[in-house]
């Protein structure tokens, strides 16, 4: 008996607790993201003067289960003309990379998988890799609409990633750290949305582009490209792209909250509740964007990205840096 107990040294226990936390966060993220399918359908319905799916269980909450059962039952067909290994790999990359980015998001004090001192850079790196899922998926499909989608995804990624990183730099300069934990700690008094308002607007626009959601769903523009990069996908492979998109909405909302809305900070309620509330609010905002706004042409998006957003982001970095340096000199 004591031989077994001897195995549980403090280090092993710490590792086990870390693993349990990781699994809990993973499950909560996936379930919350799958639940987004229902939330989106309900909210889109309400905003279009309908009720949306309200039949299955309470408020139609079981619609997700019905949808999942349906998509699992579907034939997972791989067309004969595709590049098979890459075609199979692409949805896996989409899932894995979006989930991986959650590792650095602090949910509550002590509730995160890892506190990297280069958390922001890690996040940007993983986000760039997740764009490969769309590009490879579009390329491996060997059909013109999928290819158009992939090419557009690449063009879009080049446009938004630059000013996305720069928009985050304002926050990084103010907090003086790349670590998400330090950034959240630094927002104890004042959320960064106030001093970094321009950065917030720029970052929000970049996150919409990064999730490939309307109005910036240019790589999967239904009206132009059938379904864009996932035209040839069916069954659970399509389902993985689908869920990855919702996971990336959850991720981006969590990130906006962490960087600009004080993460877990808030009065009265426990930190986890505050974090989830704020994140949920931003997830609803993503749906509102889809319900309300029309899609720009992709040359318009690239033009605004390079000619408007990038100079503004640079200006933001310059002014923030100047003020921080001037304050430090005092």
């Amino acid at each position, binding site marked *: 008996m004591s031989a077994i107990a001897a195995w549980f040294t403090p280090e092993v226990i710490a590792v086990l607790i870390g693993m349990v936390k990781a699994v809990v966060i993973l499950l909560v993220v996936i379930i919350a993201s799958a639940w987004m399918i229902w939330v989106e359908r309900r909210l889109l*319905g*309400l*905003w*279009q*003067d*309908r*009720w949306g799916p*309200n039949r299955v269980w309470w408020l139609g909450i079981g619609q997700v289960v019905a949808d999942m059962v349906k998509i699992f039952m579907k034939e997972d067909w791989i067309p004969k003309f595709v590049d098979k290994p890459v075609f199979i790999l692409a949805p896996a990359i989409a899932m894995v990379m979006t989930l991986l980015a959650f590792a650095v998001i602090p949910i509550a004090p002590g509730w995160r998988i890892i506190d990297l001192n280069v958390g922001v850079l890690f996040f940007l790196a993983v986000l760039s890799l997740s764009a490969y899922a769309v590009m490879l998926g579009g390329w491996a499909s060997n059909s013109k609409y999928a290819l158009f989608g992939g090419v557009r995804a690449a063009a879009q990624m080049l446009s938004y990633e630059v000013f996305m990183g720069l928009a985050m730099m304002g926050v990084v300069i103010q907090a003086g750290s790349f670590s998400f934990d330090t950034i959240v700690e630094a927002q104890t008094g004042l959320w960064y949305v106030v001093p970094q308002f321009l950065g917030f607007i720029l970052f929000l626009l970049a996150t919409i582009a990064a999730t490939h959601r309307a109005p910036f769903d240019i790589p999967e523009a239904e009206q132009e490209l059938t379904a864009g990069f996932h035209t040839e996908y069916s069954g659970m492979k399509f389902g993985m792209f689908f869920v990855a998109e919702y996971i990336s909405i959850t991720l981006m909302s969590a990130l906006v909250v962490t960087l600009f809305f004080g993460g877990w900070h808030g009065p009265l309620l426990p930190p986890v509740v505050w974090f989830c509330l704020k994140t949920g609010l931003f997830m609803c905002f993503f749906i*509102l*964007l889809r*319900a*309300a*706004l029309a899609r720009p042409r992709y040359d318009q998006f690239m033009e605004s990205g390079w000619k*408007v957003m990038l100079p503004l982001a640079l200006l933001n970095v310059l002014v923030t840096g100047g003020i921080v340096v001037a304050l430090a000199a005092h």
Partner: protein
Amino acid sequence: MNDIKRILIGFWSNLVTLWLIFAHLWRHKDTVNYPEEMPYLPPRYRGRIILTRDPDGDERCVACNLCAAVCPVGCISLQKAERPEDGRWYPEWFRINFSRCIYCGFCEEACPTAAIQLTPDFELAEYDRQNMVYEKEHLLISGTGKYHDYNFYRVAGMSIAGKPKGAAESEAQPIDVKSLLP
């Protein structure tokens, strides 16, 4: 300068759009929650088909076959029979296949005796397809349907037992063709 103005106006207009769509949250919803909330159906809605009776309680259908002839999908079939006691025609059997019926209402328009009528009942759903085939006992109701006073044999010139030629409502006596008198 002009460009900056354009960008700001575009930004503002998008914000207004977002607010307008958000405000739809508490607008009236067009959806009717069907099983709990029944939609209003006008009395002349074309749903499940019935066979009606005349005010005296006899069935109106005279088995003329016009409904079966006019039916564009051929879902009506019937067999004529004659009542021995008064010579009235009636369908021996009458069958409508509702899994074929398109509810066009042509049968009701064609019917000379207002026997076949469409009702505002649309809730026809069966687990077994064969149950969609309605026989006469399923179709025939005990009431008069939409036309309460109409009785074909009382107004038509057709002679049956107890009602010879010329005895119908507003019907002149038959002309005696063998007489020269005007």
